[in-house]
């Protein structure tokens, strides 16, 4: 079912992307195409809780429930980072988790995707202080950001499909302004 296992291990020369400054963009495009072709059909997800309140975890668990059934889309959860293609990080990245987060990320084979999940991970809820970094982006190279507190399973599903390039992102074109009067205006 998963074609990705048949492919060669992803340690080709395109991965380092440091062959030359001029060809950097070409290498990036080639890498993106290669990642899309490898990840387009099926991939394994490792979740990483960096101090989350567990609301995000509740929603992530629901992805495997029959109603959402993310396995039909080719996504699977794995308990081992060494088997994972995608790291789904929740929580504000507490400082006590520095070593564990780094080890998890390093243990994953490349190419790999990091998805920051929920408002904490995006830096919304906790400011950086003595206990947290105040966001996953401070420590790990994040590829996709999924807002929400917690993000609903549908939002997570859309984020995962954006991460593997199977769905176009919509957030960039949204303005969150409305000039038309709202339908019901109390007062």
């Amino acid at each position, binding site marked *: *079912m998963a074609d990705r296992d048949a492919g060669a291990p992803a340690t080709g020369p395109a991965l380092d992307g440091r062959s030359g400054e001029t060809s950097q963009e070409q290498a990036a495009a080639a890498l993106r195409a290669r990642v899309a072709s490898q990840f387009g*059909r*099926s991939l394994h997800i490792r979740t990483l809780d960096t101090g989350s309140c567990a609301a995000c975890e509740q929603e992530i668990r629901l992805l495997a429930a029959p109603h959402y059934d993310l396995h*039909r*889309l*080719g996504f699977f959860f794995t308990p081992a980072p060494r088997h994972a293609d995608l790291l789904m990080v929740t929580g504000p990245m507490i400082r006590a988790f520095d070593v564990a987060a780094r080890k998890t990320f390093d243990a994953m084979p490349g190419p790999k995707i990091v998805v920051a999940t929920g*408002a904490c991970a*995006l*830096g*919304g*809820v906790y*400011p950086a202080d003595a206990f947290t970094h105040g966001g996953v*982006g401070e420590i790990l190279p*994040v*590829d*996709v*950001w*999924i*807002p*929400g*507190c917690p*993000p*609903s399973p*549908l*939002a997570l*599903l*859309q*984020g995962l*499909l*954006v*991460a593997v390039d*199977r*769905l176009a*992102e*919509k*957030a*960039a074109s*949204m*303005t*969150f*302004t*409305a*000039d*038309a*009067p*709202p339908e019901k*205006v*109390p*007062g």
Partner: protein
Amino acid sequence: MPLWFARGLRRGVVTTRYPARPEPSAASLPTPPVFHAQRIDAGLADRLCEVCPSRALRREGPVLIFDVGACTACGRCREAAPGAVTASGEFELAATARDRLIKRIPLAAEARP
């Protein structure tokens, strides 16, 4: 099941797409607010920034800056300005760059009722 199997063999597609029809439960989700900019002046914008518990709102001169990524959809800004802030109903908000989630909303010089 046999039908899916036959279709998979025929098309070479082993997985299905994202929901083909709109998901009915999405209407009841808490979603980030949408701002009716004509009804919001600097004073109201400052009040909205004060009630926001997750630092998703701040004002820079005549522009309200809304960080969708930081928003927890708690609804406090909607309660503070019921006519000017309403629920967006948008939940498909994933972005590949953090700054794509930061929206600039031009404010009205004088709030219209």
